[in-house]
């Protein structure tokens, strides 16, 4: 079965890590069975947003057939500056989506820059992935409250609420048709509950790949452990990620 991973990170200097050649990362991902990966900046979530967006675009050069780059913008730069960087990532760097990590980036979903950024991202057909599942900035319902105000923007809860808040992620997904869940984090017993309760067309596979060996294999096994039928797995692992990113002009 083809697998597209909608939640991977470019190794950088954050978390005592260090950069790795992109060809090594691709080889590792392909060995795990991936045919494509949405690749997020990691260092850019901590510092030097624009510089790290540039590092990401340079990293995926020559590997755009596999990696789909997602940059970030910093709400603390102010609305106008953040919007400029958003448009730069779209039109100059060719990024397909945006990743936010409210915990690492230290902003609340009520930050005044967030709504205009999300609205513009929707206009640009850029899906927006949020780290979620960890209070106080990244609970599913905090994100859903803003998602409700931008129904034209695709919002992805990058961890489907994790183990503590997955039931809130289910509520968010069922209530807001623009919310998708990336199944990167909840344990297999909880994934079963998510699969039982949420529209399967809005569920995506993701692994946090890039943060350590075995993560991709572990997450694939966790999703398979749910006992979902082959058609459902096909949607989660491949069709849904492909459909979502195709709207941003990518084919894999």
């Amino acid at each position: 079965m083809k697998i597209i991973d909608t939640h991977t990170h470019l190794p950088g200097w954050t978390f005592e890590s260090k950069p790795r050649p992109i060809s090594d990362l691709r080889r590792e991902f392909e060995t795990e069975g991936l045919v494509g990966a949405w690749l997020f900046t990691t260092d850019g979530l901590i510092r030097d947003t624009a510089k790290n967006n540039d590092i990401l675009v340079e990293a995926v050069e020559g590997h755009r057939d596999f990696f789909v780059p997602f940059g970030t913008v910093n709400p603390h730069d102010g609305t106008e500056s953040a919007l400029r960087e958003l448009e730069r990532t779209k039109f100059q760097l060719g990024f397909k989506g945006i990743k936010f990590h409210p915990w690492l980036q230290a902003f609340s979903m009520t930050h005044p820059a967030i709504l205009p950024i999300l609205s513009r991202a929707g206009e640009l057909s850029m899906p927006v992935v949020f780290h979620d599942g960890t209070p106080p900035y990244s609970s599913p319902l905090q994100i859903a409250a803003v998602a409700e105000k931008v129904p034209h923007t695709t919002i992805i809860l990058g961890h489907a609420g994790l183990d503590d808040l997955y039931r809130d992620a289910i509520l968010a997904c069922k209530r807001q048709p623009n919310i998708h869940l990336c199944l990167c984090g909840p344990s297999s017993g909880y994934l079963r509950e998510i699969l039982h309760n949420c529209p399967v067309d809005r569920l995506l596979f993701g692994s946090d790949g890039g943060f350590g060996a075995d993560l991709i294999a572990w997450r694939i096994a966790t999703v398979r452990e749910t006992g979902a039928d082959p058609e459902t797995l096909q949607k989660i692992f491949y069709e849904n990620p492909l459909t979502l990113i195709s709207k941003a002009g990518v084919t894999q």
Partner: protein
Amino acid sequence: MRIIDSAVRFSSDVASHTVDTYRQAMASCSIDHAVIAPGDNCVTVYNEEGNVQTAEIIKTHPDLFSGLAVANPWYGPKAVDILKRAFDGGLRGLYLHPLRQGFRLTEGIIDPLIDVCLAYGRAVYSHTGTPIVCEPFQLAELARRFPDVRFVMGHGAYPDFWYDVSSAMTQSPNLYIETSCQVGVVLQQVLDTVGADRVLFGSGFPRSQPGLEIDKIKRLRLNTENLAKVAAENAKRLWGIKR
């Protein structure tokens, strides 16, 4: 390889979370023995009933199961009596779920129950990983206050506190970790930091699944001796399992 699963709970509400379902998994995954604890509202309210049900399951399957007792500390002296009766009846440790039971691990309200564990020489398993009530350093703090009681960091503090796990483990030599749900890279960090003597295999059933969790343990960098410790020997010693 002998396997003892230190993290199993059953539910009467969900068909796939029963004793029979888990026994099937035990057979298919070659799990020799499991340490079970009450689930659902038995954790919060109906402690005595949960302990009795657990003891009955063990009585029916003495080779397969040992058990942990629940006692909500908010019941005060009544909780102490519940716990003593459970230990007298053969349950081997205390199961805490601070999130469900409504207390922080650092609150003194838990002390009378830990004193019972100290008196009986029994270990304490706590669900961990959920802020603001059961974080790794909160359990480590409790372990410091009771250095003669052994504590288990349930589910390896997954998901939120992966960066605190190894450091907390180094603080308190009487602190153990149970492996379910936590990702391999974090468990490997623990093994590399404190060794294999305080790491217990757990499936986390029904939150996670035995086969998945066993495969994860086998992928860790463990020599044969240390794998045996993690898979069974540490749990056997901690819980006093005879078989």
